[in-house]
């Protein structure tokens, strides 16, 4: 297939439409606007619906309505807007409605700035809204993945009847790269049998997230938990980059993972056996793979464009068997290859000095 040079955000929208997305409800926010604009341009042409909502609160509830009607629906926003959608996301998860929510992350908290960050990790992975629920979370690193993971997101959403979130940073959204659509065969998803579509056959159907009786609600929440347990077993995705013999394993996702590949090369030139574990799904987190690597690697370095969020999941996965170091930048600063290399080599030097000091102390 020929390749097309397009922005990550546009690649995501095209991938989503090929993957069966037929409705988009959104509200403008930088740096997610190309998604909303692409939806406004393309969806009406393919018989879909685009509507600019009066707020993110309304947008996510319009998605709720469309998903209830059995339509593959999505929205896109950035941190502050995703915060407003948290209520709706909890309801979607509670009502077991599939949908795709894209967060092109920017600097926070509060209004922050419009520069790229990865500081919405907790919000995406740990809940964000109220109650016992999870979103499946995908983290593309290239324009190609923006397209491919959008298709996957709708498949997963339907498979688990659950909201799926795609989190990318401003760079991954704004960057242009060649995208190969591989197959341009568009999906025409069947109407799920549980949907409420305004027909005699679906008249009996009910979409709700209210369970007044404690035992009923507990059963419902346990059912959700079982679904998440299955997803944890089956859906974790990651990329290993030169980890086969790595003593030092970086963990990073999105744009940071690409900087880290350069860092791995630079460190290997210095004789340090470095590698990279890139989570592609942030939930389910590739904990088993990290546990496996903990059997071989001496140290883990988590690098994030935040003050340290994913590092907690890396530590949980490593189970205290190896040191897990952290390096982070925020405010829109992308850590450069040079600064990460410098930071890591200084850490190694410091460890060497510490080891010498310990030996001296015992002598």
């Amino acid at each position: 297939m020929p390749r097309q040079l397009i922005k990550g955000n546009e690649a995501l929208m095209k991938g989503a439409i090929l993957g069966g997305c037929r409705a988009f409800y959104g509200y403008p926010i930088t740096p997610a606007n190309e998604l909303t604009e692409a939806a406004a341009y393309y969806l009406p042409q393919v018989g879909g619906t685009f509507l600019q909502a009066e707020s993110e609160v309304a947008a996510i509830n319009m998605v709720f309505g469309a998903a209830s009607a059995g339509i593959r629906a999505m929205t896109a926003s950035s941190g502050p807007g995703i915060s407003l959608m948290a209520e709706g996301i909890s309801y979607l998860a509670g009502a077991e409605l599939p949908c795709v929510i894209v967060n092109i992350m920017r600097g926070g908290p509060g209004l922050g700035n419009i520069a790229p960050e990865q500081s919405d990790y907790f919000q995406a992975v740990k809940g964000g809204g109220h109650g016992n629920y999870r979103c499946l979370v995908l983290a593309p690193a290239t324009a190609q993945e923006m397209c491919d993971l959008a298709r996957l997101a709708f498949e997963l959403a339907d498979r688990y009847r659950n909201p799926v979130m795609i989190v990318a940073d401003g760079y991954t959204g704004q960057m242009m790269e060649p995208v190969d659509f591989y197959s341009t065969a568009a999906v025409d998803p069947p109407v799920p049998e549980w949907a409420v579509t305004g027909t005699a056959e679906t008249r009996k159907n009910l979409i709700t997230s209210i369970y007044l009786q404690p035992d009923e609600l507990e059963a419902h929440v346990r059912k959700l938990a079982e679904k998440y347990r299955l997803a944890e077993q089956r859906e974790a995705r990651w990329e290993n980059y030169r980890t086969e013999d790595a003593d030092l394993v970086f963990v990073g996702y999105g744009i940071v993972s690409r900087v880290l590949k350069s860092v791995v090369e630079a460190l290997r030139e210095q004789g340090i056996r470095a590698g990279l574990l890139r989570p592609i799904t942030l939930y389910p987190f590739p904990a088993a793979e990290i546990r496996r690597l903990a059997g071989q690697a001496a140290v883990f370095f988590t690098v994030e464009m935040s003050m340290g969020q994913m590092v907690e999941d890396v530590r949980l996965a490593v189970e205290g068997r190896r040191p897990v170091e952290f390096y982070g930048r925020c405010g829109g600063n992308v850590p450069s290859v040079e600064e990460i290399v410098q930071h890591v080599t200084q850490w190694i030097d410091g460890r060497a000095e510490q080891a010498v000091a310990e030996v001296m102390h015992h002598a």
Partner: protein
Amino acid sequence: MPDTIPANMKPVHEKAECLYESYFRKGENPHQTHYCPGCGHGITLKLLAEAIDELGIRDRVIVVSPVGCSVFLYYYFDTGNVQVAHGRAPAAATGLKRSRPDAIVISYQGDGDLAAIGSAEILHAANRGEAITSIFVNNAIYGMTGGQMAPTTPLGNKTTTTPFGRAAHKDGYPIHISEVLSALDGPVYIERVALGNVKQILAAKRAIRKALENQVKGLGFSLVEVLSPCPTIWKMDPVEAQRHVREFMTTLYPLGVKCDRTAQAQPLPAPPPAPPLEEFPRLLRIPTEEAPVQRSGAMGEVDCRIKVAGFGGQGVLLLGQLIAEAGMDYGLEVSWLPSYGPEMRSGTSNCHVRLSTRAIDSPLVSKSHVLIALNEPSLRKFMPAVLPGGTVLYNGAEIPEDLRRNDVTVYALPFFEIADKEGAAKAGNIVALGALLEATRLLPAEVVDQAMARVIKSDKWLEIDRRALSRGMEAIRSMKTQPAKEPCHA
């Protein structure tokens, strides 16, 4: 009904078909509703159900249940049911109706749900003329949460959150939703009715039926506000509560049609049919044919990092994009990253371009092989980060003395002046592109030409840009004293 009743003795009044016979979804006491004696919801639901039956639309109806006492509409309505978040029924109904235009979508809300937390959603659904039917039950109090102030609570009323009486200066005035929404151009029909006596109830029935009929005809947004008793929270008996509706509520909230555009309203156009799936790639503008020019196999390893910088409006981003487009056609891996952050909103602009024979890891160009600086501030900012052996193309007659370096090749040329002589000063960025090609031999001119033909949509501009590209190449040829270096070819 027992089978023993003869056909000519069918009852003249029975429960509406679209209400369940028994409320099994409710669990305990499936023969009775969960509403208090004398509550207006029971009457309103009955009127709604009868209207659905009379119009013969049961199979098409989707009832959107709100939060509040009426949260459990799905206990009673044998129709499609969707239960939604507090205040968001009009938004969810919008998503439903736009997805299933043939469905009859009924959004049902109380006063807290519609007039307080959901005021934005109802205002905008009404303003869009969303083709739904909205039933707004106004009993001027929060019932389910135990009697707190509603936006519609009368002044002076004591509630659990206005224990000394609602005061205008502190709590604001009662909101007249029907009048507010009637001021918009979107709705086709808004009427306020009441449940104060049989006459009022019959009028309410006609209004609800009309609001539904409007949707059947595809006419747009209709809302019926129902003034409704809440005996339990009002601390009145049902008879007293009904009298209160009749004698007090209707003075605060006058009954009647607030807006009716049904006579002149046209049915909303049906959405066009979806195109066949095979059409999608074309509609999504996905290329289906390979670009004809491909890279020659003899080329060595390439890893070129390019920074393009200048003022916003100089065509910095397009210049970078053309390099990336041509690089892709040439069979290379490429990335293009625009300046990102506050700079988007001020005078400067830059982009990072990488061309490589290998997969591109970091798309960020902090150290560059090539710098194209279209103004002096950009030259000052990015010159120090040009790698030794690199190439600098500067839009100026000469490089400022304090920026001179011996370890890079610098071409100072007034690109925009050269373009101006061609009658299109704006094409200075393309002159710079031509200069880049000649100075570095990074990409063949015909590949760049092909990329330009694809990206530049106007024939007039394509012709100008083609001339500009040639001028840029000639300008370098005329000044070159030594063979071109290939800084990116390892």
